[in-house]
């Protein structure tokens, strides 16, 4: 596609815990943590892509790999059509910026906002030296902070204000792609709304492409054009936000959207109290057994999936939904969806 600004192909990032020489002598093998394990993802120009998934599914790791904080174990990241090298040029580094989750730890407590911004502006030579202050003031306006904020240190701000500072810092480098790693989840509800609004505004005024990581489904629904669902290091479903929420294809997506608490209108607490009180234990065992026999990797959701079948012994790739090719899901049931269009075979949310 021509308007894609960022593409991730087969990206993997594994963490191998450091095993000392002595331990190796004693036969301890490092156990790899496959935080990100083969992710394909495309970000279009001007688009906001939501990334949701449970805690530990690798969202942050993926985001950090894209910004260049973690060298990938495998796969490539393509920016504007070009593969990003291991050592990025300054311009490339600048183009992809990140807003961090925790407004309390993401700012250096010993620097004022002004120093923080000036350092970046000077180092990347974004504006002439004498214009640094002016540009800093502009950035403050942009994120809705008073100019006097430049003289303050992080601890003198509220959570929402800090998050604005964090955004200003990312924007100071004039990026084209912005990764937001759960930028609102540490914030109070009322403050959360202002930051979400700010994101919406900035995206429009600055023509940014945004990857918005969150575990809050409601927030993603509010601001993302498209959404990708991540499960244990892989994308299991992508599609435009509305359809994905209203008609989830992957069983995990279904579980996710179904678990979101709703203010009124839902019929009390959600069902799944004790997980997998299940009648599909036999199938699961069969899946595990056949996977072990054939040396295949089973679908990573198989051990929780209410609709697990024997074919799940082989992990499916992202398959296009026959009803809507813009939607992809990594589930063996996807090709069959054509037959059941309209009739929801599995129990799903309303």
């Amino acid at each position, binding site marked *: 596609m021509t308007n894609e600004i960022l593409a991730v192909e087969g990206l993997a990032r594994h963490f191998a815990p450091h095993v*000392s020489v*002595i*331990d190796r*002598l*004693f036969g*301890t093998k490092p156990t790899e943590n496959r935080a990100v394990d083969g992710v394909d993802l495309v970000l279009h120009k001007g688009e906001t892509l939501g990334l949701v998934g449970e805690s530990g599914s690798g969202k942050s790791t993926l985001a950090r790999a894209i910004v260049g904080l973690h060298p990938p174990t495998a796969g490539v990241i393509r920016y504007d059509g070009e593969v990003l090298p291991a050592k990025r040029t300054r311009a490339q580094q600048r183009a992809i910026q990140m807003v961090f989750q925790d407004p309390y730890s993401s700012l250096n407590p010993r620097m004022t906002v002004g120093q923080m911004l000036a350092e970046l502006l000077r180092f990347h030579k974004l504006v002439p030296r004498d214009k640094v202050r002016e540009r800093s003031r502009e950035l403050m306006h942009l994120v809705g902070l008073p100019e006097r904020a430049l003289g303050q240190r992080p601890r003198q701000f509220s959570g929402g204000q800090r998050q604005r500072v964090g955004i200003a810092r990312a924007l100071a480098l004039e990026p084209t792609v912005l990764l937001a790693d759960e930028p609102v989840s540490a914030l109070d509800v009322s403050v959360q709304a202002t930051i979400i609004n700010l994101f919406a505004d900035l995206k429009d005024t600055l023509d940014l492409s945004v990857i918005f990581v969150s575990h809050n489904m409601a927030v993603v629904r509010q601001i993302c054009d498209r959404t990708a669902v991540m499960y244990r290091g892989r994308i299991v479903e992508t599609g435009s936000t509305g359809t994905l929420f209203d008609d989830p294809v992957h069983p995990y997506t279904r579980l996710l959207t179904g678990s979101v608490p709703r203010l009124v209108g839902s019929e009390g607490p959600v069902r799944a109290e004790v997980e997998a009180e299940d009648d599909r234990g036999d199938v699961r065992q069969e899946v595990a057994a056949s996977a072990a026999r054939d040396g295949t990797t089973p679908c990573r959701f198989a051990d929780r999936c209410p609709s697990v079948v024997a074919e799940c012994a082989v992990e499916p790739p992202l398959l296009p939904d026959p009803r809507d090719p813009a939607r992809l899901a990594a589930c063996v049931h996807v090709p069959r969806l054509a037959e059941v269009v309209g009739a929801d075979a599995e129990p799903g949310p309303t």
Partner: protein
Amino acid sequence: MRYLVYILKRLVALIPVLIGISLIVFFLIRLIPGDPAATLLGSHATPETVHELRTQLGLTQPVWRQYLTFLGHLLHGNLGYSYVYSSSVVDLITTSLPVTIWLLVSGTVFTLLIAVPLAVLAAARRNGVADNVIRAVPVIGLGLPSFWLGIILILIFGLKLHWFPVAGYGNSLPEHLRGIVLPGITVALALSPILIRSLRASMIEVLSSDYIVTAHSKGISTSRVVLGHALRNAAVSSVTVLGVNIAYLTGTTLVVERVFSLPGIGQQMINSILGRDFPTVQGITLTFAIMVVIVNLLTDLTHAALDPRVKLS
């Protein structure tokens, strides 16, 4: 089993450290000015006799040869022969080491006896009078040198009150027990201020944590909460502090042994340095280093025993 494998691993990991230590010890000692042969022979020695003795002691060989010989002997558990006493260094150390270990153990016990109650009290009465007193007074132990404290303790408890012997180590277990009290307290007075501070800080932190509130909400008694929940958690972080400082203060035994005339390796070491008794100094320094390593190992094991989150690896 978990512990055994762990200990084994630690021992293997020790090898490079020990080699490093032996290198330092060996070359450091040889940097000290003064010729052991001349020292041994005294004022009437002639250059020829000195040279003869040097050859006999192997001091005329190049230093690296001497080191290799030393290492070779070391592998056989042989630390060489004392120049001064003409007896094996291993023998010298094995007779005096128990005294030093005994002193360290009793010092640690007294430290715990002093520090734990005071720290708990200070943390419970945070910022109160008791807290401030407990924080300020032990600094005396930190600021006054051990040889001063030791003498004062002897004056008071040995000479005035006759509670404990003035010095010495005795020849039987009851005598050892009585004899080690004052030296142990002297070590403890230097060690406990540090432990009090650390334990108090972690107690305060622990007491303000959520699980203490949870414990309170169960309605169990306050003392049970403090002793059963808070202290153990506070101990987790303080054990390391204690370990590091025991290791650090192993050096104090040098002085304490001297003041209380305990026949430990600390005193032995000073004498050997003064007498340029290279093999003995080497052996003792090595012993000290191994003791520190063992203290560290014990610290880690205790830490692991206290804190289930710690994985032994």
